[in-house]
């Protein structure tokens, strides 16, 4: 039986005490263990940033790549080894600034990747610049008079791009987050989980208290129906004094990208033994040029 301890790494996290990443880390390990997935059946792929150090602190296949590029790296993993459960960890800068283009394409492709965006509305590793999710007017070292950019709405973008699983969670509610992650891992295709996460060092506005006062289950919204895209598009626009969390949208009716790739019908290509071609195949290839 797989337990959370199987995912225990000897490496001690360097996150600040109280960092929201701890709750996300715990939830991921809990979800994977409860699904009975062993560390060698999982690949955690991240970009660069504080959130992206998570694979270093986890005993599982892990790949810490480039800022913004976790999704294409993970896509490559999934396309040759669809038997692996592939989970991307990005931050809001990593995933929604440099990586936003890739997210849109992953969503429209419905590639079988769980994308967990650690969203703390600030750049932590580079010490406190405003991020794509920072509220307009956020004062930071790169926006001393207050940011002019309006924040992105990742849920709305994902839905518009064709994502088939869109959720939001709060890192403090680790149990609820674990359940969402479990649903996402079992989902067919791309799943975005936007995780609201306090940055205890650089974000003095969006604190644990700030979130705790605002978050409530999206299922409490009238007419809650996560199978209805139009309902989800409306619910994704709720943000302010009250912030809904939970699964906004989910459909299992769209086949995942990897299910539709002809070369994968015979199984994961990454497991195909590599041998020189038999002479008749070589001859057939040459014949086209004679």
């Amino acid at each position, binding site marked *: 039986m797989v337990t959370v301890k199987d995912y225990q*790494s*000897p*490496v001690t996290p360097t996150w600040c005490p109280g960092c929201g990443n701890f709750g996300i880390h715990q939830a991921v390990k809990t979800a994977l263990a409860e699904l009975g997935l*062993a*560390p*060698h*059946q999982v*690949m*955690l*792929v991240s970009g*660069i940033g504080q959130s992206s*150090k998570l*694979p*270093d602190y*986890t*005993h*599982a*296949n*892990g*790949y*810490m*790549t*480039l800022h913004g*590029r976790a*999704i*294409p*790296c*993970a*896509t*490559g*993993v*999934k*396309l*040759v*080894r669809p*038997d*692996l459960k592939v989970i991307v960890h990005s931050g809001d800068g990593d995933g929604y600034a440099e990586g936003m*283009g*890739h997210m849109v*394409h992953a969503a429209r492709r419905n590639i079988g990747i769980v994308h967990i965006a650690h969203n703390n509305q600030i750049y932590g590793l580079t010490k406190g610049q405003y991020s794509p999710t920072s509220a307009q007017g956020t004062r930071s070292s790169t926006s001393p008079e207050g940011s002019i950019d309006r924040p992105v709405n990742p849920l709305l973008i994902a839905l518009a791009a064709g994502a088939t699983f869109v959720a939001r969670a709060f890192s403090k509610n680790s149990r609820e987050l674990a359940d969402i992650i479990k649903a996402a891992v079992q989902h067919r295709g791309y799943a975005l989980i936007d995780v609201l996460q306090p940055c205890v060092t650089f974000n003095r506005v969006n604190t644990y208290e700030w979130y705790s006062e605002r978050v409530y289950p999206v299922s409490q919204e009238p007419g809650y129906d996560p199978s209805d895209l139009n309902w989800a598009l409306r619910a994704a626009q709720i943000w302010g004094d009250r912030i809904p969390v939970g699964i906004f949208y989910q459909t299992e009716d769209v086949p995942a990208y990897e299910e539709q*790739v*002809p*070369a*994968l*019908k*015979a199984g994961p*290509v*990454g*497991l*195909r033994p*590599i*041998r*020189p*071609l038999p*002479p008749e195949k*070589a001859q057939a*290839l*040459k014949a086209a*040029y*004679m």
Partner: protein
Amino acid sequence: MMKNDMTFVLGGEAGQGVESTGAGFALALARAGLRVFAVPDYRSRIRGGHNFFQIRAGDYEFFSHNEQVHLAMALTREAVDSHVRQLVPGGAIVYDTSLKVDKSAWPDGVQDFAMPIADLVQGAGGSKLMMNTAMVGIAAGLTGLDLRFVEGVIEDNFGRKRGDSMAEANLKVAHAARDYARAHFAERFPFKLEAVDAPKRLLIGGNPAMSLGALAGGIQFMAGYPMTPGSPILEMITAKSAEFGVVTKHAEDEIAAICMAIGAGRAGARAATATSGGGFSLMVEALGLAGMTEVPVVVFEVQRPGPSTGLPTRTEQSDLMFVLHASQGEFPRIVLAPGTIEEAFRDGWRAFNLAEKYQCPVIVLSDHFLATSLQTVPPEALDFGGVVIDRGAMLTPEQLDALEGEYKRFAFTDSGISPWAPPGHPKGVYRSASDEHDEYGSIEEDATNRRLMMEKRMRKLETSRADILPPKLYGPERAAITFVSWGSGYYPVREAMRILAQQGVSSNFLHITDVWPFPAQAVAEALRGAKRIMSVESNYTGQMAGLIRRETGIHIEEQILRYDGRPISPEYILRGLEGV
């Protein structure tokens, strides 16, 4: 009369089927047992402009295209004006009588073969689009080439069954055009072709040869983003995707393409991407990711003239310094620059072995000229029998079963190569990071670890020298002129040598194919004692000559450089010899 030694050019607008017709005619000539070297020349547009396709055919050994043309077939007035100047005395230009041409500037001795081609096409029941087929029929009629070779290609292209309407119409047009040209002009045309009994040859270019090499090497994944002239590699692998078990992905951009390939490599698959210089520019950061995390990945970089968009459909060898130095920091990489069809095929599979053996990026540097020129080669040139699969220090499931303690993915070793495990085995679980890391793959900033890890990675470059092929010397050991070139410079240099030999001038040629790690010792030894060294490259700054100087101290002062986007021709080299 001259037999079996001539050059054709077919010119027209984009959309008139110049390239497809030219390629079809080249195949017909190859099937007639002739040797062929064909060069397409087209502009970066879908309609209009002036495109041409040049085919040299002969029954003796020659190495490249040349500048002399014996028969020009012009579908437009611009094509008439442009190609009439290339004609040798006695050569002829064919065009439709309806074109109003100005003959005042035509060179002496050029024959005017204006024919009612459109009427011939119409009379044979063909459509306006079949003017190009008529041209091929005319070429057969003028040269005496047996039309059955042309018929065979038409049937292959439009359907083998007689009675298929497209094939039938084209065949009728070809016949009518052949008959007309034979009846009215053939007697006056001094250049003839005749099928020869020769062993069967392939007609192929560098891009397909390299793609077949990759398939032979067991490629499992390729991602790319369309960019001339690299994209045909992705297209060709994609066409064989299901049959050969290769997942291919047309990605959202080149950054995604190489990252997907690196992800696939991290997952234990043989993975590659194909692009040109502009796309490679976008891939640069990820190249360092592969270097740092020791992930095998192959990049096929088919050069075209830069900077920026440059000349999209033309050729240059100006990315050499770029690929050698691309990405921040220092890490081992291997750069191969095939020059021939044989080498393009060989490096197509060899690159995967080297990438996995040394766990680093391997760049195969080709160019538009090598990629798109079509030439006849013996079937053995694609040496499938010689393919070796070497996955390097990849751990087997049995070896992983026997593993004691936690797996050190980046273990320090004398060779610098650490045994690698594809994911999926409980004992082969590890994390890797683009940050500096320790032997387990964990992020580590310790100074000693950094020094040891840098040295371990860079040791791989030294270890890889065992697999680096030395440059090849062609011609006599001692000669009046020693040419030095790399990649596709091979063809025009070999042809220039052949012409020089006929003139009684001895020359030899050092052809560099494996570029990095640089085979400095072999190059220095080969050039020691050379009387007159002449480097030949398609770029402005003489990048290979510069690299030779940097790595061996040998300063090559005489350089023949071309940077107008056109392939180096043998004549260009001969003029350069006089001019330098």
